[in-house]
């Protein structure tokens, strides 16, 4: 057996953490592609910038393989984020990881950030790049069986379903990728989606080559059921308009993401999806508060787009600070 090691970059640099006595030009919330690129750009502009991240790398870390980031034909989400982190590390950005932001206090010149490590940090501006979390099906039984067969991270929980039968709910890239990955571990994989696939054709072709995967399109999950553990979903087959039961040991929900913006709702404007509304420069409705990446109302949630928005927000912050 060979051992793999997924050493995090910055998160292990204990020496250079955020200081609660310093007034920063900007504090970046979140350590995904948007946050890391914002840090790089802000630092290169000479700003005194720091970062708070729950875990470095963000959601990309849950992705087994990334094949659409320009310059890298194929690598794991973890490897791509390590490259990002290593790049930023060269600029010595004070970073506190493992801490979650609880709230922002928006003073006119001074923004206070309260974190769950009990500390308060101060900055003249903030870049919110907290990303998003998996969306739930919101059907009966889902929460009851969450952690009892219903899962939201295939790369985390997949190994617990070795040799068993699983369902993947969803039809986008993450769902099809999860189904492809799970097909290597599980006995069978059933992918269930309420309409047609939205995933890239190249992934669907790959999925169709697998003989332990069964596809249910135009099939809407109505209920999640089981006894002590999850055992089945009840779904509506839209073609025949009949209710069907699909049995399995595990259900992986991969139906997109929701912005992690709740705690900022009292400070910045959000849209009906809860996404933080930003203008073309990445500025929110609150002066001095900027946002970038999946947490914003940008249309496409992609690594390259988040990274680019992070750069844009950092440049806007630079203009903002220079005019203060």
């Amino acid at each position, binding site marked *: 057996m060979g051992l*793999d090691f997924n050493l995090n*970059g910055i998160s292990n640099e204990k020496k250079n953490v955020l200081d609660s006595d310093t007034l920063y030009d900007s504090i970046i919330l979140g350590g995904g592609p948007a946050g890391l690129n914002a840090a790089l750009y802000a630092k290169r502009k000479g700003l005194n910038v720091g970062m708070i991240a729950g*875990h470095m790398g963000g959601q990309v870390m849950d992705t087994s393989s990334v094949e659409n980031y320009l310059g890298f034909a194929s690598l794991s989400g973890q490897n791509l984020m390590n490259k990002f982190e290593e790049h930023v590390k060269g600029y010595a950005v004070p970073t506190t990881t493992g801490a979650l932001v609880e709230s922002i206090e928006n003073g006119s010149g001074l923004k206070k950030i309260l974190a769950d490590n009990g500390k308060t940090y101060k900055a003249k501006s903030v870049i919110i790049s907290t990303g998003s979390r998996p969306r739930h099906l919101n059907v009966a039984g889902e929460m009851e069986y969450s952690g009892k067969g219903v*899962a939201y991270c295939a790369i985390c929980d997949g190994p617990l*379903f070795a040799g068993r039968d699983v369902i993947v709910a969803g039809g986008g890239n993450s769902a099809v990728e999860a189904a492809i990955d799970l097909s290597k571990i599980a006995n069978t994989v059933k992918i269930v989606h309420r309409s047609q696939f939205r995933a890239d054709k190249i992934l669907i072709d790959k999925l169709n080559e697998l003989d332990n995967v069964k596809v249910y399109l135009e099939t809407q999950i109505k209920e999640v059921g089981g006894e002590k553990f999850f055992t089945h979903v009840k779904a509506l087959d839209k073609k025949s308009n009949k209710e069907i039961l699909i049995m399995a040991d595990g259900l992986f929900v991969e139906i997109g993401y929701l912005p992690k913006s709740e705690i900022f709702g009292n400070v910045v404007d959000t849209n009906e999806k809860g996404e933080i509304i930003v203008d073309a420069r990445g500025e929110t409705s609150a002066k001095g508060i900027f946002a970038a990446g999946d947490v914003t109302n940008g249309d496409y949630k992609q690594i390259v787009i988040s990274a680019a928005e992070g750069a844009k927000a950092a440049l806007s912050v630079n203009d903002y600070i220079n005019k203060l």
Partner: protein
Amino acid sequence: MAFLNEDISKQIKGIFDSMKDDVKIALFLNKAGCESCEDAKGYMEEMTELSEKISLSVYDIVDESAKASELGVELTPSIVLLDGENKDKGIKFNGIPAGHEINSFISGILEVSGAGQELSSEMTQRIKNIDKPVNIKVFVTLGCPHCPGAVSKAHKIALLNPNVNAEMIEANTFGELSQKFNVSGVPKIVFNDGPDLIGDQPIDAFIDAMEKLSA
């Protein structure tokens, strides 16, 4: 080095530079057989070489059962981190802390050596106020990026309060135990073999759960 490549070794060496006090790794193996014991031993030997402040003692769980029971070791491979005076700090890893768990292992070493992350004084006080024995089990898989955070928080709490011991359990290595605790999502955090939390929870949630435990 057979396990850690040059690049990773160099990075870890740099991190270990900030260690303050010595740390002793007590590794428990089973000569009667244990699938991942050899790998665990090789990996720990390589870690030991990365800092003069780290030393390794290898025990057999059967031959040295007294030592095993002193440190509450029931599984193999199992790793207990002791301070420079051989004192148990309640920090244990069952199974190999490879994959993403290398991060919780490194953070455990730093914590025991006195170079850990700071918590607010209020939170530290709440942790220190817990006056009943608490065992925290954190079930993980090695491919899970959220898991090391949960493991490190449990370990941090154990370090601050001698009533608490915290152990990582690699769910694939210990399948039966994981089934017993109905682990089908990780990280799964179990307090005194009863109430549980799923996901990498804030440290507040850990403290709340411990405060609610009956004595």
